[in-house]
């Protein structure tokens, strides 16, 4: 490729930091931006810089926020007696979009994972424990993922809630709606079977 433009090579290399973008796609993107959409490229560059500089974490719930406190935490329309714990901001968005949940969130930004160096301190659990002790929260809804680490984290969170005398609940997991038992993987089916409910 054109050694005449080191910048072009650098741009292609930089685009490869995006998930799912290999050498070929990065090259296509770079040429597209330079040949057909320099205005779009300028806008993208600006937004990237703005986002990286200005988006931090909410002091109260740790989700992404441009202000010290995010709109959800700062607003008055939410039920502050309900607190839902999720692993990531994406999970928070998923709950927000799929359910009619009107309570508040706490975002761990991970799950307990000793081999990744993620312990209670890294997940902000001291802060969460403090918040539970404040007394406003009546129910802690634990929505970590149903992985081994997510379940271990859920157990830890339940203990935190118990120590603060707050009711804890765990989201249910099992057979997907519209799914057929035959095609559900064993682990999921075993879990769904184990946590069956009276009808």
């Amino acid at each position: 490729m054109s050694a005449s433009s080191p910048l072009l090579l650098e741009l292609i290399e930089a685009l490869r930091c995006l998930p799912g973008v290999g050498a070929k796609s990065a090259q296509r993107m770079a040429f597209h931006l330079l040949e057909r959409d320099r205005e779009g490229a300028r806008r993208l560059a600006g937004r990237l810089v703005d986002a990286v500089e200005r988006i931090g974490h909410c002091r109260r719930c740790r989700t992404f926020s441009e202000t010290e406190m995010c709109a959800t935490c700062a607003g008055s329309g939410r039920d502050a007696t309900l607190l839902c714990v999720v692993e990531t901001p994406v999970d928070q968005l998923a709950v927000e979009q799929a359910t009619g949940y009107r309570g508040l969130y706490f975002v761990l930004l991970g799950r307990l994972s000793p081999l990744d160096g993620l312990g209670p301190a890294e997940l902000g659990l001291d802060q969460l424990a403090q918040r539970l002790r404040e007394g406003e929260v009546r129910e802690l809804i634990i929505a970590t993922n149903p992985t081994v680490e997510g379940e271990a984290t859920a157990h830890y969170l339940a203990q935190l809630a118990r120590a603060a005398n707050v009711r804890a609940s765990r989201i249910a997991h099992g057979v997907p709606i519209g799914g057929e038992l035959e095609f559900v993987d064993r682990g999921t089916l075993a879990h769904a079977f184990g946590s069956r409910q009276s009808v």
Partner: protein
Amino acid sequence: MQRIDRQPAWVLHERPYRETSVLLEVLTRDHGRVGLVARGVRSAKPRFARGTVKPLQALELSWLGRGELGNLAGADPVGVPVPLAGDGLLCALYLNELLARLLARNDPHPDVFARYASVLYELAAAGDALGQAWALRRFERDLLAGLGYALPLDEDEQGQVLEPAAQYAIDPERGALRWSGRGPAPLLVSGAALRALADDAAPAPEVLRELKRALRALLRHHLGGRDLAAWSMRPPASGSIND
């Protein structure tokens, strides 16, 4: 290129890798700790069932090996996952971190492999935190022995039989040194505690705590002086790992 077929294995850790793959740290019977890439498991049509290749599930794995990382080629579950919950899960995370940090890659220890499976089921069957703690201590004992760092459990460094009432300092190289009471006190463990471990006889809670401190000091030594992250993971209302 080497192809390994249907090797008994446990996943110690998984982490996302590239867009749709997962990087696995695996304990195998005949190849020791191995790093594998499971390509495409996080895609819409995975080659391996996503719920299958995970920790706490006995597996038979096949892979193509070349260099540091192998390529997962097949994964079959053996039976159902170990039914661990609550503190048992935290204990398992600890064991997985311990093995991933202490075992060298590609250094097989079939005895440790077998012991790992048995301790998981012991943890699942343990009725309380004390039972779990005792299962962990016995595993640590066998792990150290399996790696050639066996604890001195019958006699001290002079060849004298351990006395239950005497206090000993454990020296990783020399063995149990009977404590004379002079000089700055090192970490001490009673002869009774060491003998409980030798006899496989569940000791009283305070003796279990002694053993935990002694074994942890020894493990820390073999970990190059570093602590494990799991050692600081203690839920407020339980104590199986840290008490």
